[in-house]
């Protein structure tokens, strides 16, 4: 999902960089205040892990790459603010030393993979944990969070490419999101497997209590919503957006029509439907995986209760 140099125009780069700087600054501040000193090495270790995992990548049309993001896994292990810091670090190092992701696109990449992915991942993780209890619920939550975070990040990425005018929305959206709906299954499965292995071996490593404090979730959520409103909504929304309605009022809609990129109308009802079906399938797979992995939880709790 790393966007190279020359693919995003100046307005997209500046808008996304501003959002990324706000998100990263907020996260750094929060981690510095709340993370105990003995957990600091875990940030570095998480970054090294994600860095190693992202070495494996392949091109997706539209000039970006497909690979593990790791945002949801790190958010489940260390908390969302820590995940924002960890993934940002990885992206900065990759950008300057491996030419993975452009220097001018660094803000865009940080916003997609280091802000959207961990925040969406942590939100989904928390929600599913409330829905399904126990270790099994946690594993299913990580798997589904992995899928959702990948798809959300790819959606933001497609929106930015389209907003820059590099690739039309009609190409960027189905290709990016379609491919990442498949990659997300792998991401979810790997996240859940690794999460379960770590939880089994050292449950105290996992930061369950503060995966995402509700207070800070408002802040991060707002940031993601602003991003979606900016990058995705103009293309995905069937209603005319603010700019279009202003153009219509002023009477130069016809002139603007040639330059607008094809909106959602071309897809009709099929695309949202495909999204919902995809999410349901991913959720089903996540629950199935958790049942497969965590086999004797019920029996063990029963015996515990009996004794």
């Amino acid at each position, binding site marked *: 999902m790393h966007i190279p140099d020359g693919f995003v125009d100046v307005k997209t780069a500046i808008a996304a960089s501003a959002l990324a700087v706000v998100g990263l600054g907020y996260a750094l501040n929060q981690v510095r205040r709340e993370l105990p000193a003995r957990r600091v090495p875990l940030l570095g270790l998480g970054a090294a892990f994600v860095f190693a995992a992202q070495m494996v990548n392949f091109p997706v049309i539209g000039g970006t790459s497909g690979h593990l993001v790791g945002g949801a896994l790190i958010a489940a292990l260390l908390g969302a603010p820590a995940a924002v810091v960890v993934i940002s670090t990885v992206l900065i190092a990759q950008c*300057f030393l491996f030419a993975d992701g452009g220097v001018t696109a660094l803000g865009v990449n940080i916003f997609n993979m280091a802000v959207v992915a961990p925040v969406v991942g942590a939100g989904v993780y928390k929600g599913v944990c409330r829905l399904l209890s126990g270790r099994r619920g946690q594993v299913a939550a990580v798997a589904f969070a992995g899928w959702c975070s990948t798809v959300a990040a790819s959606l933001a990425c497609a929106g930015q490419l389209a907003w820059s005018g590099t690739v039309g929305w009609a190409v960027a959206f189905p290709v990016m999101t379609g491919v990442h709906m498949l990659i997300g299954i792998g991401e979810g499965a790997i996240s859940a*497997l690794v999460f379960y292995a770590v939880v089994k071996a050292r449950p105290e490593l996992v930061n369950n209590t503060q995966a995402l404090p509700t207070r800070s979730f408002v802040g991060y959520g707002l940031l993601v919503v602003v991003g979606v409103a900016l990058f995705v909504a103009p293309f995905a929304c069937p209603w005319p957006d603010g700019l279009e309605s202003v153009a219509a009022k002023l009477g130069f809609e016809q002139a603007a029509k040639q330059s607008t990129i094809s909106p959602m109308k071309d897809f009709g009802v099929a695309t949202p439907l495909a999204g919902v079906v995809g999410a349901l399938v991913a959720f089903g797979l996540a629950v199935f995986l958790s049942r497969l992995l965590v086999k004797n939880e019920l029996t063990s709790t029963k015996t515990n209760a009996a004794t």
Partner: protein
Amino acid sequence: MSGIHFGQHHTPYAPEFRPTAGVRVPFAWLAPEWKLAVMLTLVVVTAVMPLTWWWWHGGAGIFLVGVAVAGRIALKPLLWRVLWLLPFVAGAALAAAWHGSTGPGWPTVAARGGVCLLTVLVFAAVTPFGALPGVLRRLGVPALLVTTMALMHRYLFVLVDESDRMRRARTCRTFVPKRRFSWGLNAEVIGRLFVRASERAERIYLAMCARGWK
């Protein structure tokens, strides 16, 4: 006793982070900040300029090849990296050519992508990873981010060490997996690697702090 400096100024870096530890750095006389500045200028101007400035793109290309030759950068790994990353650029150029987009045409996208790619790779070849935390710190990046960056660099070696050790231990126990690839087994190994590495990571960080890392 060479590691102890009484009454001397000493850097807060562990030996591994000293930029010039054991590797030949091309253009070592130039501070990494200046290298970064040159790289950023080249990349930003290239990414913004239209292709009618073809002399800029051509000039930048010639300059970069000159730097690579003058700095005696190993060309083979550089070319492999360019080859590995070119499909990403080509993919985008193809997408821009295929669908009538409103933005710049595919030649612009390809030229920009190619020149920027080469710029960053040449920069990376003349700047060791260990120099990056120091540069970030001097540029006023928050300490937590610098620490995470330095630890990431250090722990990559820890991960390699630990996974080697685990592999050796498995071989000693004459372990043969039933299937050649098993998701469960690999995840178990990765999870164990995280747990084992976290124990060493903590000791390394404490040692760094004891030597004055902030």
